[in-house]
């Protein structure tokens, strides 16, 4: 297919624009990365752009040694893995059940989920309730309240509904129980949408900081997202916080190192997640 001159210009423009968009997303992160590994002097004189100047690792060392980075990282991992796997189990079971028209009271259950999605009791009532379960300062306060996601339940439900009825019916007529049908027929063909939900749930668990901000005062239980929030937002307000360590380090470098060390784990698994996006997200393209 031959392109006219005008069309060539049009296509070229699109390429330039697309690459520009990509760079706009990449360069700010690269800049922060470069700053985290540069000297305070280079950073203060604005000489750091996209590559470290006067390379040193003081900022990273500060985060590694003088904050509870490692422990927080561990906590985030535990919360994310536990939260995601339990949540996935619950979501699959619920979605599978709700996908069956013969379930009596189905409408009622669906409305229950919709209602819980759009109506929340509010920050303080939830805090009181969590407290009444004795879950303040427990990992579970960060895991349990977010196990059910109505939205992903509906996404998965429509995914299950799109599996041809004939497949499941054949199995049922052969006398297979619902459980067996689910595990041996439905789940294998829904891998893509399940993978998507795993990614979303895991990222949500990893990034959530507000709950920890309220529920966690016990230092050994802090997740990484909270440590990040503290380093970036809180430490600057507190006058008593005169830590001695950290000479030759500016706040900019500490901040940059903290940010980069928080997103590294995400970037590390990003390539593995990426292939599920396009396949899986289609399922979730808001059809109900």
């Amino acid at each position, binding site marked *: 297919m031959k392109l006219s001159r005008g069309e060539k210009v049009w296509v070229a423009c699109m390429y330039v624009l697309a690459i520009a968009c990509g760079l706009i997303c990449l360069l700010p992160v690269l800049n922060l990365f470069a700053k985290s590994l540069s000297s305070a002097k280079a950073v203060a004189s604005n000489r750091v752009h996209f590559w470290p100047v006067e390379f040193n690792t003081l900022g990273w060392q500060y985060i590694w040694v003088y904050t*509870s980075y490692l422990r927080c990282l561990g906590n985030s991992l535990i919360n994310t893995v536990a939260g995601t796997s339990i949540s996935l189990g619950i979501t699959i079971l619920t979605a599978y059940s709700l996908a069956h028209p013969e379930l009596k009271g189905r409408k009622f259950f669906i409305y229950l989920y919709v209602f819980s999605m759009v109506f929340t009791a509010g920050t303080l009532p939830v805090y009181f309730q969590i407290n009444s379960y004795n879950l303040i300062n427990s990992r579970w306060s960060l895991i349990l309240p977010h196990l059910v996601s109505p939205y992903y339940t509906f996404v998965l439900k429509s995914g299950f509904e799109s599996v041809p009825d004939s497949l499941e019916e054949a199995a049922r007529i052969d006398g297979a129980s619902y459980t067996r049908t689910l595990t041996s027929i439905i789940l294998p063909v829904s891998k893509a949408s399940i993978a998507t939900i795993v990614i979303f749930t895991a990222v949500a668990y990893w990034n959530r900081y507000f709950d920890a901000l*309220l529920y966690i005062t016990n230092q050994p239980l802090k997740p990484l997202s909270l440590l990040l929030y*503290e380093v970036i937002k809180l430490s600057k307000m507190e006058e*008593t916080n005169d830590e*001695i360590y950290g000479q030759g380090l500016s706040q900019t470098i500490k901040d940059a190192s903290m940010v980069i060390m928080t997103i590294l784990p995400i970037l590390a698994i990003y390539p593995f997640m990426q292939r599920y996006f396009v396949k899986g997200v289609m399922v979730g393209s808001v059809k109900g």
Partner: protein
Amino acid sequence: MKKLVSLLLILCLALGLGLANANADEEIRLKFLISTSTADFEKDHGWSVVQEKAGFPIDFEIINGTEQLMSIISTRQPYDYVYLSGANFKLMMENDALLEIGDLIDEYGPNIKEAITTLWPAVTVDGEIYAIPSTAAQPDSLRNSITARQDLLNKIGWTADKLPKTLDEFTQLLRDIKAAYPDMVPLALANDTKPVALISNVASAFGINAGGNQGAYQLIDGTITYIIDHPNLKPYLEYMRGLYDEGLLDYDWAAQKLADARNKWIGGQAVMVYNSWNGFAIDTMYELYEDMDFSVLPLLEDENGKVHAQTYSGVGAYGGIPYTSEHPAEAIQAINNLMEWDTHRLIGLGVEGVHWEYDENGNFKAIQPAFSEEKNISNVFIAGFYREDIYPTYWEVRLQKNVYMQRCFYDQKASLLDGGERSPIAIAPSTGVENQSALEKRVDDALLAYVNGGEMAKVDEAYEYWHKNGGEDVIEFYNTWYAENMK
């Protein structure tokens, strides 16, 4: 299915465990809420001293801001101690959330009583003591003052020995700077240095006390007077306005925070900056600028050759026992143990010969790198109950981490000469006037607006408003309190 069942089991177990946590151990463990720190407690030398000397094992937990503290208080979680900033102390008092600890201190706190001498009025309401008043770590120092790029001043003839001492000289300095460095802001200013709109160095020439980071209350002829009633306020404002109109100040004054003003100075966009000795990155500037040097400007003299300033003093923070505490007596005992002379030093300074030593003049000197590495956050374990008599001295050792900051601190303190006065309300309790902060804010805004090109009518309006809407109650409370407690 097996997997699913086991998942369910885990879930139930988790809930069960959470509920079962409640009744576990017999031995008394104290729970202390202290201020946020991103550092790892257990790596710090102070932490292990506390566990050894407090008499009880103490779990330290952190508060991520006022919101979390209030949530904790509202749900009656049992904590035995809480570190409180001034604002949080006020909130706790308003919510009736602190225990009266006077009797407990009488019984278990001989060290507490010995260590704190002058600060008790700040925590006493109707004769009852509600918290331990912790001294400001830098008492009788100057909090805010003008710091200048001496290297730049040298080039235009204002050498360190010739810095301005009078208003006229100061005006001349600003004009010279403006002429020599037209691209730079002569004096970077921020809207959040307190008292707002009062520059200590200049205010000094008008007999106005500023620079102490507290409210603009001052003792004039034995009476506590608010800034709006200060006889020299208008001359001061007119003078500053004159500078503004000439373009000698910072046009961003009303809009920018201290951090921004500092950044201007550090980044070479300003010749001078009005701020505190704290949080500087002067060492970076020494790397950035050739022959970098800085100096603290003197406080300007009034017509009698005297200088005036409000010093930073009084209570820096409060240590309270929440009403939910299950072991208030033990908590007081533990605090008492930690305030014991040797223990306090062990936490604040560390071990002699390991973390610190005496220098040739007999002053404390930090031994590096041990002090930085092992005493990084030691102060947080005694924050809220610093010994009034000695902690400020320990704190000055912490200042040694940065020689430039240290020099700035001592230069500022020296510039006070004999003109530094404590704020008369430094240890006053809350006035109970509900809209006090709103009233003060209105005055602050009006003053700041005027020196930034606004109308004098606004200042007059604020004057009226202050007097009509409760300002007189504030003044009356302070004066009555002062007459009863401070004379």
